[in-house]
């Protein structure tokens, strides 16, 4: 055990209970056990664990699709899959990763488990609605994937389903309908989770937990939840319109009936661009927490971080048409400047992350390595995104591998942060640590694999290779870069296998204790795993890191604009 936690951390002695606020009596929870517990539970931790397992399975499925795609592109005239299968595979790769992994993993799994504990709440505000969210998500996932078992195969119009390619003439078959149905179900699941998170954060904070004492992860989840509520209903409406076009003879997106195909793109991206931040903000929050804990410092520029998150969310609602610069039917300058401006709050975040590490005492645990890897990878993805906000540059990179490389830099950064979060919070959820040695190996495979995978794609895009092509016989010299990218994808695949191996190897092996990382926020004050209603006692909450203040009273948070002496007085008088 001790070799896992190098350098050894001096844990403070367990404080006597009377120092803390008594929150709950020692009520033992009696309920069903075994499989029945998993099916009937309304406990946010158990639901969150179901979400975690399901979404990691989706990551593995989506990743397997990606490996097949990369194998197909390893030669200019790949024959591993047919054109039809290739279209199905990249459609489902994108759909699984975006709809079934990244979102549910962030707000279904980690936020579901961590937000209530971080704010000292016993559960989510609406536990039954929370259970409904999970079952809708699982049903939606199965519905979407079941397209593979229909006669026409799964949906094959890309994860963006542009009309009129997605209408019943161009894409007949049940696979497309199952895709729409599955997406509707997971969309409702996301909306319900958004409602639940908002209500939980607004109404169930513990005494003393003011808005500006919430951990950054909780802040980001609040903003994410608000974005979900603004964006997902639009997608739901669009999907219903699409279904009506396919089956009930409406002509919303078809020219023949007086409809407008580009309307679908407006609706889709009005959801789709906030969705980018719905995916990203939770992972920003995870990385922020990890960077602070393993630097042994508070989050640098905490309030600036919150305002940056809020302005990203606000701007994200006005940039959707930068996905449509090449349609020729949108106002270029407006969407260009709005998109460019997002670089500002994002830059603030990156500088705040560096400021958090600055003059810290950085402990390179697996979680910290993942978080640093996230910052570097996200920096690359962010900088290449700035090009795409400029219409003339977008004209020549749009729908080429440059765009694919850009958003894979971004999403692979999110995967790094998410993996870091599993190493960081996993012990809190399960009570057991993961093996650090395998973890570090996994990090290097994932980090190097990501760069080897994306860099050739940037060059390929600039050389003119379009996305979503199954063959490229006209330019066989692209083979080398494609092979390099495929090799990177294999490294990423190995890292995923290492993660699964790590979970198997570490299974109930390294007991974690309540606070193995000397962490700062409220979830580390309770036991690992937390009891049924999360807390037996709570510390005084006088800053955004009550556990740290409790364990290190001499190094407690100074708070904004207060001198240490002043602050000390305030606390002792309270």
């Amino acid at each position: 055990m001790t070799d896992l936690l190098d350098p050894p951390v001096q844990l403070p002695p367990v404080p006597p209970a009377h120092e803390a606020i008594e929150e709950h009596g020692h009520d033992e929870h009696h309920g069903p056990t075994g499989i029945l517990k998993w099916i009937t539970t309304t406990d946010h931790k158990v639901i969150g664990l179901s979400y975690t397992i399901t979404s990691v399975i989706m990551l593995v499925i989506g990743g397997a699709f990606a490996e097949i795609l990369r194998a197909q592109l390893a030669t200019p005239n790949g024959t591993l899959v047919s054109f039809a299968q290739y279209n199905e595979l990249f459609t489902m790769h994108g759909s699984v990763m975006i709809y079934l992994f990244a979102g549910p993993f962030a707000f279904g799994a980690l936020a579901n488990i961590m937000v209530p504990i971080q704010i000292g709440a016993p559960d989510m505000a609406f536990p039954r609605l929370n259970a409904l969210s999970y079952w809708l998500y699982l049903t939606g996932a199965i519905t979407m994937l079941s397209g593979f078992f229909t006669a026409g195969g799964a949906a094959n119009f890309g994860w963006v389903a542009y009309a009129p390619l997605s209408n019943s003439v161009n894409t007949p078959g049940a696979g497309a309908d199952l895709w729409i149905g599955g997406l509707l179900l997971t969309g409702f699941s996301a909306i319900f989770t958004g409602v639940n998170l908002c209500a939980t954060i607004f109404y169930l904070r513990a005494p003393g937990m003011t808005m500006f004492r919430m951990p950054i992860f909780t802040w980001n989840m609040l903003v994410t939840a608000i974005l979900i509520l603004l964006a997902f209903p639009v997608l739901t409406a669009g999907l219903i319109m699409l279904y009506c076009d396919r089956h009930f003879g409406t002509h919303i997106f078809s020219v023949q009936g007086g409809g407008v195909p580009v309307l679908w793109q407006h609706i889709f991206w009005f959801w789709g661009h906030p969705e980018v931040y719905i995916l990203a903000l939770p992972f920003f929050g995870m990385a922020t927490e990890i960077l602070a804990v393993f630097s042994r410092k508070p989050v640098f520029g905490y309030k600036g971080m919150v305002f940056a998150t809020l302005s990203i969310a606000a701007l994200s609602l006005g940039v959707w048409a930068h996905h449509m610069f090449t349609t020729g039917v949108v106002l270029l300058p407006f969407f260009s400047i709005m998109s460019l401006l997002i670089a500002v709050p994002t830059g603030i975040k990156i500088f705040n992350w560096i400021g958090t590490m600055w003059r810290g005492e950085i402990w390179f645990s697996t979680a910290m390595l993942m978080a640093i890897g996230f910052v570097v990878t996200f920096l690359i993805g962010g900088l290449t995104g700035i090009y795409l906000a400029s219409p003339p540059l977008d004209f020549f990179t749009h729908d080429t591998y440059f765009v694919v490389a850009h958003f894979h830099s971004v999403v692979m950064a999110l995967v790094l942060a998410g993996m870091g979060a599993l190493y960081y919070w996993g012990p809190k959820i399960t009570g057991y640590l993961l093996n650090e040695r395998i973890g570090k190996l996994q990090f290097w495979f994932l980090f190097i694999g990501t760069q080897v995978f994306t860099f050739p794609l940037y060059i390929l895009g600039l050389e003119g290779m379009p996305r979503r092509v199954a063959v490229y016989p006209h330019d066989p010299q692209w083979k080398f870069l494609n092979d390099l990218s495929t090799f990177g994808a294999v490294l990423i695949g190995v890292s995923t296998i290492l993660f699964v191996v790590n979970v198997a190897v570490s299974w109930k092996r390294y007991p974690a204790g309540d606070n193995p990382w000397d962490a700062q926020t409220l979830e580390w004050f309770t036991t690992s795993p937390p009891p049924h209603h999360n807390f037996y006692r709570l510390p005084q909450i006088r800053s955004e890191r009550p556990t740290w203040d409790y364990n290190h009273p001499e190094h407690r948070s100074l708070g904004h604009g207060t001198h240490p002496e002043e602050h000390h007085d305030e606390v002792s008088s309270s």
Partner: protein
Amino acid sequence: MQTPALPPQGATVRARRWRRLRRTVALPLAALALSGCTVPSFGASAGASTSSKSVFHLWQWFSILAVVIGGFVCLLILYAVLRYRRKGDNIPKQSQYHIPLELAYTVVPILIVFGLFAATLVVENKETANPTTNVTINVNAFQWGWKFTYPGTNAFVYGQTTQNPEMVMPVGENVHFNLTSSDVIHGFYVKAFNFSRYALPGVKNEFTIMAQNTGTYFGQCTQLCGLYHSLMWFRVKVVSQSEYAAWIATFNNPADAAAAKAAAKTTYQQTSAIVPAKGSTTKFGR
């Protein structure tokens, strides 16, 4: 005992500073600006049209900024990671705010962003301008091929998948394009022009391109359009203006035109036997 009038001390210092600044910053920058070839290409290329070249220069300036800023941030991360690794069980100073610094990294990016936006606007306005032109080409995209017609003449080119069409256009002349689609959304993309535009059903997308170099360039559909999206290629042949006029004239000979039409038709039927095209040949007439 008159002391000679010395120039004020501050001015010399300022002048010396300015000279040093000019040497260290201004001169290399000027050299960089004068000799365009010293700026690295950052993976893109200048291309073969007027706007592709200005887009390429925009690309270069964006890339210089990206490399400078990205390199600076990477160095900061690297320094933090190497310098502040945990050595003992010390708790560092719990500093959390530095308002001037935070303001600096808010304001400076805003200024950079507006600079980038200004540069974007200049190039964008040049690229999307619609000057009067003598040559017009109608481009029609369909699953999975292209039809190029030349209004006012008898000339046309079409082909699909395994028999890809070759569009002909004159060099050194503004050519007006009307881009349409017969079925789903396609992407008209010519790498040598550093340009792409969607072909939308029900919409006529217009743009102007002036080719600067003769040659044959590859083009491809970039927007997923169904089964044979991967094979929806075409070529752009940029020829001298006299060659262009001669090429147009070949279609005026009725015999030649009929032969060309027949050849195109056979080609179409042949390929449709290989590739099961959706719809029928009447698709063009829509």
